């Protein structure tokens, strides 16, 4: 408990210090609870998520960093490895491949990488996974882009 808190404080400082280091990631800690974090990540370029800003919610366990943080998308996203309704993310480093050497920042980077490189073979969003697995790249991209516009971009007008 104490260790996780100390570590999170350190990470917070790190984030504050390197605020401009990674313009694609904006990590903010809950004002009252160091174990709750939010992140805004920019959709990677040359993907259907380009131009979108996605919000992530981190829930950090007390055993952190020995246990991975729980992360989910608050913003709707059409991605084979993200549950469409709950926003749950299927990412090995958030489960069995977690390493205590990872940080919240690096988790954000991993999620950005996952957005650019979906894994259709372990889908949480079957529709999206099936589109990709059937080779309908175009269908997948247009669906994903549509949801990006709908959910992850500022409303126009």
């Amino acid at each position, binding site marked *: 408990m104490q*260790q996780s808190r*100390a*570590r999170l404080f*350190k*990470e917070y400082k*790190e984030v504050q210090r390197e605020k401009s280091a990674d313009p694609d990631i904006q990590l903010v800690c809950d004002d009252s609870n160091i174990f709750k974090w939010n992140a805004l990540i920019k959709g990677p370029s040359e993907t259907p998520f380009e131009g979108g800003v996605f919000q992530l919610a981190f829930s950090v366990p007390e055993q952190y960093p*020995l246990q991975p943080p729980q992360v989910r998308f608050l913003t709707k996203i059409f991605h084979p490895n993200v549950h469409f309704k709950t926003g749950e993310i299927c990412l090995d480093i958030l489960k069995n491949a977690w390493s*205590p050497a990872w940080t919240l920042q690096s988790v954000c980077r991993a999620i950005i990488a996952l957005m650019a490189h979906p894994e259709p073979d372990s889908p949480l969003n079957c529709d999206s996974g099936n589109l990709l697995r059937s080779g309908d790249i175009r269908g997948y991209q247009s669906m994903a882009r549509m949801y990006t516009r709908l959910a992850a971009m500022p409303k126009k007008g």
Partner: protein
Amino acid sequence: MHSDSIATNSSNIIPMASSNAKDFAKKKRVNRSAKLKQCKLDARREQWLSKVNKCSSEKEDSNGVRVLGPLSKAGNVQGRAMEKLEIRPRGEEENHGLHIHHYSDSESPSNSPMSHNGSILGGNDSGTTFTGSSRSSVSSSRSSSSSRSGGSCSGSMSEEDEEGDDECLDDWETVADALAATEEKHKPDDHSLDTDTASESKDVAHGDSHPDDATGAAPDDDLKAKPENGISLDRSTVKCRAWRPDDVFRPQSLPNLSKQYSFPMNPERYFGCGGSVWGCKNVRPAPTSCPICYEDLDYTDSSFIPCSCGFKLCLFCHKRILEEDGRCPGCRQQYKNESGKVETLLDGNSLAFRLARSCSMVTRS
């Protein structure tokens, strides 16, 4: 001071009566306890002296107290009880004085196990360098617990004496013996180490005329600037000649070398001279932090490489990880058996060191 005079009066009267009967036992006891009591009483007397300006009362006090040991129980209890009464309200300063005494007593024995451990590891002036050395501290506290109790005896001498003079004194005697022994041990060791390093570095200065050995020429300087380089360079040039060919370049490249490379080079020598080497880690240019807890790595941690992938972390995090899934954060592989041993023997810091070293050798081969 009233209670003082009462106490001493009563205790002065009683010995008169009982002196004949108790004479034999008295002599025996006085002989045994004379030295130790003297020490204790000296401290006390000084306190009293500073407090009380009456020289006569001071004498009486000392006399009375000295006779108290061999006294019959009745007189003992009476006198002591009064003494207790008078000591406690005497207030802070006397207590302080006694406490200081007590600390200094318990301090040196607690140093002695350190030095024992240190000599095992090869460094007895490295008590501080083995930070987080739970075993040594544990053992020291264990071995000094007796001395602590002895120390507290001095604080609460009156009660102890009531219960049983002999136990207390025996404790004190052993403590005193241990003190003397360890101090004797400690000092020569230190000396030899210092002279060793000094002579070695001088050897280097004389033997090899490399420009880098300027660091070795001034043994004091090489502790400050580039200590690791200086000393390991010295060692290697003098004894092993391992770096002979490119000696000149060593200092530049050395800091980049992780410790796992410097260790297996000549483990025995590092064992033997661990003290100075560890001590020098003190001045490492940039102490890195543990990637898990972000705390700074101390000497112990920074030389602790539990996994063959070379991923460093502090001992605390390593232990925590071993308690959980036991996988290295760097490569996600299970820590090997050796690391498992580390887990069980983590409190034995020396063993952790040894294992870390053996691990690093594994990585190298």
